[in-house]
């Protein structure tokens, strides 16, 4: 069955990327690198988990013709769009606040952001 294989592959990709993101949070040295590891990889992994749910819903709809699986896939896509939107905005706010509170990256040489009026 091709749908089951596809679901397994998507779940594996999503879980591997989530795990990499959490390891990055634990291992990286300062705030900016931790933020970089967390936001991108966790959002990417969640996209693939939601894609697995959508593939499952479409395959069940092809098999049984039940209308509730269409609702399941549409609601999952809405949740995914909201998550992508809010994660990007929140990451921007955290990075800007950390810079304004006076933290600098550890091996930084030049600081071009200090020349601009924030």
């Amino acid at each position, binding site marked *: 069955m091709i749908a089951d294989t596809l679901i397994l592959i998507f779940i594996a990709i999503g879980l591997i990327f989530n795990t990499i993101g959490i390891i990055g949070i*634990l291992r990286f040295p300062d705030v900016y690198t931790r933020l970089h590891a967390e936001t991108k990889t966790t959002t990417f992994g969640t996209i693939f988990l939601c894609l697995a749910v959508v593939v499952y819903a479409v395959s069940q709809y092809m098999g049984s013709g039940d209308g509730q699986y269409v609702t399941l896939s549409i609601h999952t896509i809405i949740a995914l769009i909201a998550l992508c939107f809010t994660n990007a905005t929140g990451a921007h706010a955290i990075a800007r606040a950390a810079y304004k509170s006076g933290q600098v990256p550890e091996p930084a040489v030049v600081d071009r952001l200090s020349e601009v009026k924030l």
Partner: protein
Amino acid sequence: MTDIWMITAAVLAVLIVVTLIRLYYGPTAPDRVVALDAINTLTVAAMIVLGVAYNEIAFIDVAIVYALLSFVGTLYIAKYIGGEL
């Protein structure tokens, strides 16, 4: 097929508990906010997966509410840390 979704949710729960280490050791407040953001994303993913595992379509609504609202607290903390409040 149900076991696959349950195992996925269990792995996500393990990741949530592991992230609490950063909450405990984080030297400054922005590090702890990063842990909050990671747990927020993992919670939404776990809710979607568990909704499929229980075969209840109405449970996905809770995940949508969480994805829409959970960054309001992050924005308030960021505004306070940045000295703009």
